[in-house]
């Protein structure tokens, strides 16, 4: 990524892993939330910004959303536009819920666009905002899907 889109880019690194928390209920009874960085959004939501500065904003999508747009600078969105489950498996999660493999899909999914070279706003603002919303939704497990 460095030199390709933004010359000053550098990876943020950590010496220690973040703490693990196991779901408190079996997956078959858990409320599962999807958070993905595929740049998915509803047709009537604004697209993500695709410039060199990146975009740390996010979109909320209701659990029953079925029509998506994809805007992302890091991969060819034409393939995933044919089958959003490959990067934004909300429909697949609904099927797993209907079949009893998970308890239920959380009421809203969250979508970011994964090119975020300036990570400060993500770490200090939008990431914590989404975390608080996931806590408010009482999710048992968050599944994060990159693209």
């Amino acid at each position: 990524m460095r030199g390709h889109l933004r010359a000053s880019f550098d990876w943020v690194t950590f010496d220690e892993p973040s703490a693990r928390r196991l779901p408190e209920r079996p997956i078959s009874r858990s409320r599962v939330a999807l958070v993905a960085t595929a740049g998915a959004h509803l047709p009537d939501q604004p697209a993500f910004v695709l410039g060199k500065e990146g975009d740390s904003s996010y979109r909320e999508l209701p659990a029953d959303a079925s029509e998506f747009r994809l805007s992302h600078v890091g991969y060819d969105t034409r393939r995933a536009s044919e089958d959003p489950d490959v990067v934004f498996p909300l429909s697949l999660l609904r099927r797993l819920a209907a079949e009893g493999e998970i308890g239920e899909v959380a009421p809203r999914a969250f979508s970011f666009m994964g090119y975020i070279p300036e990570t400060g706003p993500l770490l200090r603002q939008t990431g914590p905002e989404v975390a608080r919303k996931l806590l408010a939704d009482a999710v048992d497990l968050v599944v994060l899907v990159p693209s």
Partner: protein
Amino acid sequence: MGLLQRVFDEHGLATVSLTQVREITELARPSLACLVEHPFGLTLGAVGDEATHRAVLRACLAEATTPHPAGTIVDLGFRWQRDDLRERQLVKQAH
């Protein structure tokens, strides 16, 4: 993805992520990641390959309930064998 997962971890949420590149996830060190060596933009598998999509997601969910140490990257064993798209993406010769 690893940075966002760390934020969620720090808020006390139970999380599991997919990753396509082990080396990038090793920098962020989130609580638990599952490696699938699929191309960018095809994280769960090929377009229309629902069997693989399901297998990836089921395996990921299963690992979420397994008591791995924090920072574990589990190789789910999925490899892209349809073409050389992933290899070309990794050397910036494909998008």
